[in-house]
């Protein structure tokens, strides 16, 4: 998909909570062996944090990099699967907190881990059509996981915000095009009213994550006439350390183009925040002219693939707000009992 | 203006009165006060009720009406005064005005409070409710956290140790040992204070008031009438009020306590009484540090010297300036709305020679200081022995 008018990212920001729990600590509690842990540690939202508070932090850093006034933002879209309110938008709270209200569109998006990139697509369309000058897409989660379940080792907290505008001198990276591949594939879900999701084990691999990721990437490259070697970086959804690298191998993309985006070893799977943070980590280091492949994945299932081309102004703008690496080094380790308390896993 | 006398007092012990409701406490103190003056309920021309938490904790509004009714008084003036911890003294101030200006003759002031039958957390919220609720409510900023900022500033500015400031509570407890109405009539050591739970660093639980129940009543009338009735009495020579910003952040300095200085100055200037004339002082020490600061702002010693007064023993009953002669807020106890009236009761007992083992020798003039919100409202009442 290519918008009639060129659109690009003019600002981006991330936020990762300070707390970390080592997967070896979780393993200790549930009697799991240490050899088989999918990540080293994951980020844990503090007792006073949730998807809304993380979204606000990321949004403000995005505005700082964009260098625009919040009143100018025409849409605030928050994609998450850990909405504090099942009904009542996160996006209105974020919009009010950043000062974008009242002349603003606001909505929450849900598509498991690709809610953020769904918001990307909507923002691109809104901006390209000229309906709004600036649209902000946020992907954020404080993911839930059943105690002792495999997901407990990876379900992390964090998010990122991206502001889109028509391509101009302020553009950090413009969108060459996007491609979405969506089917109805029930690999992972959470029913209304349920605390924890269900996942279908190995079914979440080939028929779900890999199929949609690969098909979206191939579809994008075919439509844009690009080859894997045209990309300097590739950002995939990071449910664990292995999946993104395996997807890259399927596509013929070398590991070292993927590794700069991989934060899951220390942050875990931030669900809707995963692609956001991965993309931001790359923007933190990319050079003008670099082409970035972003392929998100959301259970249910689908992938959004994008090609971004980095512009000159990235060198100046990236320093306006804290980088992903800063958030990675900003950490405080907690044990399982504090983790259970923070994440409301203790029956009161 | 007529001279105003306090002719009688009645009070309950400060305690957890599981068996008594607010009405029960009120009636007990009121009847005792009337009995001690040999007056009937019918002789009252009106009453002031001092209370802070009946609405918040008991759900009871319209308190003065309800309490006057419980005393069987349907047809006389009754009004409730809420000014946080200063309520009792402010109620006395209002009654003083009534009597002094000939509006009423025989007026009872009764402070009553019931704080015991709720959770510790609710007490903290209740105490914090005197601050602005529009923005502070539920934020976790408690009255203890604000007191801690004052405490830390005091320790730093004057280079004092917390153990020395905590002596305020030690002195309180020493005086309470022989006080029959005290909540905690036993010795308390600095070691015990310093090993008690931290409320908000550095404040320890045992240097702060505990929730209590109690009721204290005084009966006031024109001096001439007191003489006529042949009642042993004291004069309320002056009652001065001053206010300051209750938002600590708007004050120019956390320790300035302008209202306390102002009220004291006006009390001294309007009467010609000086700090050295005082036979004893009843301070509002809801926190030990607030008591120490009060010693200084009342002119009993210089800035930063409050701790020396505590250490050198001058504040004991036998010293040059006895302080909190029945145990003060910490040891006699602090049923919040009633505190100012308990202080007046104690001044009366001292000045009429009825303080028993707590008697200050030759007590002639006594000062009570009652405050709300870290001295955002201060009432200073000066009492003089008479006839």
């Amino acid at each position: 998909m290519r918008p009639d008018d060129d659109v690009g990212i003019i600002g981006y920001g991330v936020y990762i909570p300070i707390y970390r729990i080592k997967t070896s600590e979780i393993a200790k509690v549930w009697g799991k062996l240490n050899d088989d842990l999918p990540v080293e540690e994951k980020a844990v939202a503090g007792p006073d944090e949730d998807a809304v508070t993380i979204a606000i932090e990321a949004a403000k850093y995005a505005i700082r990099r964009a260098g625009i006034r919040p009143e100018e933002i025409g849409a605030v879209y928050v994609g998450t699967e850990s909405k504090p309110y099942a009904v009542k938008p996160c996006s209105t709270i974020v919009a009010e907190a950043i000062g974008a209200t009242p002349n603003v569109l606001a909505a929450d998006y849900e598509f498991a881990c690709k809610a953020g990139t769904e918001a990307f697509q909507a923002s691109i369309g809104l901006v390209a059509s000229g309906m709004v000058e600036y649209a902000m897409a946020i992907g954020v989660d404080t993911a839930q996981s059943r105690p002792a379940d495999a997901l407990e080792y990876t379900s992390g907290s964090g998010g990122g915000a991206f502001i889109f505008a028509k391509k101009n001198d302020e553009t950090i990276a413009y969108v060459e095009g996007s491609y979405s591949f969506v089917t109805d594939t029930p690999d992972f879900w959470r029913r209304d009213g349920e605390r924890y999701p269900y996942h279908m084990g190995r079914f979440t691999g080939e028929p779900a994550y890999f199929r949609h990721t690969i098909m979206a990437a191939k579809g994008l490259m075919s439509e844009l006439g690009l080859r894997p070697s045209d990309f300097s970086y590739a950002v995939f959804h990071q449910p664990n350390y292995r999946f993104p690298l395996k997807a890259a191998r399927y596509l013929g993309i070398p590991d070292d183009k993927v590794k700069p985006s991989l934060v899951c070893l220390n942050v875990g799977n931030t669900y809707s925040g995963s692609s956001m943070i991965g993309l931001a980590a790359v923007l933190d280091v990319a050079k003008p002219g670099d082409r970035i492949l972003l392929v998100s994945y959301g259970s249910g299932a689908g992938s959004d693939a994008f090609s971004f081309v980095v512009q000159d102004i990235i060198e100046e703008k990236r320093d306006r707000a804290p980088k992903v690496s800063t958030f990675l080094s900003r950490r405080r380790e907690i044990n399982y009992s504090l983790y259970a308390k923070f994440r409301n896993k203790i029956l009161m | 203006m007529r001279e105003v006398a306090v002719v009688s007092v009645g009070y309950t012990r400060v305690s957890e009165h599981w068996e008594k409701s607010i009405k029960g406490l009120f009636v007990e103190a009121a009847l005792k006060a009337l009995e001690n003056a040999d007056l009937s309920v019918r002789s009252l021309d009106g009453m002031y009720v001092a209370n802070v938490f009946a609405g918040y904790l008991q759900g009871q509004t319209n308190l003065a009406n309800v309490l006057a009714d419980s005393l069987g008084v349907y047809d006389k003036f009754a009004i409730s005064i809420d000014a946080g911890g200063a309520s009792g003294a402010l109620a006395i101030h209002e009654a003083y005005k009534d009597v002094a200006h000939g509006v009423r003759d025989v007026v009872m002031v009764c402070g009553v409070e019931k704080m015991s039958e709720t959770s510790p957390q609710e007490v903290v919220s209740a105490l914090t409710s005197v601050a602005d609720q529009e923005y502070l409510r539920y934020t976790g900023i408690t009255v203890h956290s604000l007191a801690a900022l004052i405490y830390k500033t005091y320790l730093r500015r004057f280079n004092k140790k917390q153990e020395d400031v905590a002596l305020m509570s030690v002195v309180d407890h020493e005086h309470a040992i022989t006080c029959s109405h005290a909540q905690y009539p036993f010795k308390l050591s600095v070691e015990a204070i310093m090993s008690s739970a931290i409320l908000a660093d550095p404040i320890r639980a045992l240097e702060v008031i505990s929730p209590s129940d109690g009721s204290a009543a005084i009966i006031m009338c024109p001096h001439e009438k007191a003489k006529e009735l042949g009642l042993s009495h004291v004069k309320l020579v002056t009652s001065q009020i001053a206010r300051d910003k209750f938002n600590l952040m708007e004050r120019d300095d956390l320790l300035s306590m302008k209202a306390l200085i102002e009220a004291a100055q006006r009390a001294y200037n309007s009467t010609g009484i000086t700090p050295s004339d005082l036979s004893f002082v009843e301070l509002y020490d809801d926190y030990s540090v607030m008591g120490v600061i009060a010693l200084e702002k009342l002119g009993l010693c210089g800035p930063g010297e409050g701790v020396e007064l505590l250490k050198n023993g001058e504040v004991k009953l036998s010293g040059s300036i006895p302080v909190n002669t029945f145990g003060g807020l910490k040891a006699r106890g602090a049923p919040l709305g009633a505190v100012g009236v308990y202080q007046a009761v104690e001044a009366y007992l001292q000045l009429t020679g009825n303080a028993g083992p707590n008697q200050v020798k030759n007590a002639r003039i006594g000062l009570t200081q009652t405050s709300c919100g870290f001295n955002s409202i201060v009432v200073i009442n000066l009492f003089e022995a008479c006839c």
Partner: protein
Amino acid sequence: MATSAYWRTRLQRYRLMGNKCSTCNKIFFPPRLVCPYCGSVKLSESKLPERGRLVDYTVVYSAPECYETVIPYVVGLVELENGVKIVAPITDVDVNEVEEGMEVELTIRRLPEQLEGGMICYTYKFRPVIK
């Protein structure tokens, strides 16, 4: 907390919106209705700076209602970049690692649950600056 009471104060909670007396230029947070210095009612919106210095702090152990599971926590006195002082909870700090003089910045955080299934209250706190 009543929904409308929370909603009325949202700009203060979310954006640190105070006000300023047009006559004597004093800045207030929370905003005032009448200037206590000159009596003027001509007060205009004035957003406070989001950064400041932690001038003093205390660690609270004695919980008010709803905070039983949150203690201990830090309450700090922050002097903002324009000199205005504000008392606020300090978050993302270990109670043993707070230091006077720390540079702090505004963060919007969630208050403890008051009523299960009830309205969620977000309000201002401060955390160490992330550079």
